[in-house]
């Protein structure tokens, strides 16, 4: 089951979402990317884990070309962690749940 705790964001609300004082992880993905789709359930579990403590968001790079362009994203899945609008860290490639949780934990 897809988690309702994952926030689906777009170019339009990106800036507002990442300006949050809570850490915000954005998973950049696309429907044609197998590893991105397979990472979906992992992101869902991460979102459940951080419910209320961090924002876990997803952005479809096909529908939202501006933000990925701004961050020079040439590979997906890429996850970027923000806090107060600042880029804190970035991981590229399908990643284990524990590693993603670790990354967000460090920014709490």
């Amino acid at each position, binding site marked *: 089951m897809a988690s309702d705790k994952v926030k689906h964001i777009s170019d339009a609300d990106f800036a507002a979402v990442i300006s949050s004082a809570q850490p915000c992880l954005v998973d950049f993905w696309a429907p044609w*990317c*197998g*590893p991105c789709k*397979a990472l979906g*359930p*992992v992101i869902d579990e991460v979102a459940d884990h951080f419910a209320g403590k961090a924002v876990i968001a997803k952005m479809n790079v096909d529908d939202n070309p501006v933000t990925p362009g701004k961050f*020079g994203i040439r*590979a997906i899945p890429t996850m970027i962690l923000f806090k107060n609008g600042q880029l804190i860290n970035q991981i590229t*490639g399908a990643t284990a749940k524990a590693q993603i949780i670790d990354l967000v934990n460090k920014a709490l």
Partner: protein
Amino acid sequence: MAKTHYQLIILGGGPAGLTAGLYAARARLDHLLIEKGATGGQVLNTHWIDNYPGFPEGISGFDLMEKMAAQAKRFEMNSIMNDAVKVELPEKAAKIIHLDDGSRLTCDSLIICTGAHANNAGVPGEDRFLGKGVSYCGTCDGPFFRNLDVAVIGGGNTAVQEAEYLTKFARKVILIHRRDSLRAAKVVQEKALANPNIEFIWNSRVTAICGDKEVEAVEVTATDGQVSRRPVQGVFVFIGITPNNAGLPLDRLRADVGGFIPVDTECRTCVPGVMAAGDICAKKVRQIVNACGEGAVAVLSAESYLATLEHTS
């Protein structure tokens, strides 16, 4: 208290692990499959599979793995998402699996299906440009290189197949191979050699990936020592694999120098009750079809082993 002991634990949810899960579930073994991240394994990294029987038109890597997972789930395969960070194989007692959340599971029999991951090229610039032009996955990243030029490093099945796929997006694909001929299957070679958008550079190695903020060129060094620079915006690396063996007791399992685990024809390792299947095994052919076959064989070996335990206990 949560259950902590199983008759059988399967590590990894790629083709080998999911097939083992299907067989274990159908055998009604008391089992658990542990996958650390995305279910499906390396197959997810490929756009199209043309050599897995039963799909006359071929099938996308993602769809194939989703079907394998669904089939195992239909028979109530039991699985969790967790990283098995350490495996202990005591001489007499149950096998111990340490998970990343600090918990511990034990089992009577174990099937290792942790597979492998892509090798790095190990050249300057590779780490710096990861995600900024350097890639190990055509199906993930190909569309970012529309009308650009890309280099592919390698000459095996994966490299040649992915080079062919990348021509859907890239203006030109330059395949750089250290030998003077390809190792890929003949049909794969024929298609690639006839593709006007693939240029082959033989007897050469990429010795650096260059650029400022993004990839701008590769430095190519030929066997005769001649160095040239080719402008490209992307570099795709397909030069073999490294086993996912972190946390496994490699000495105990008598892993080979590459870190792969030797098994007999029944997929048994040298440790009683421990089987291995798929790309983690020391073997020559690493394909989906034999990974699945080995996953099935490993469960049947686990069942035989479990039967001997019942006799002695």
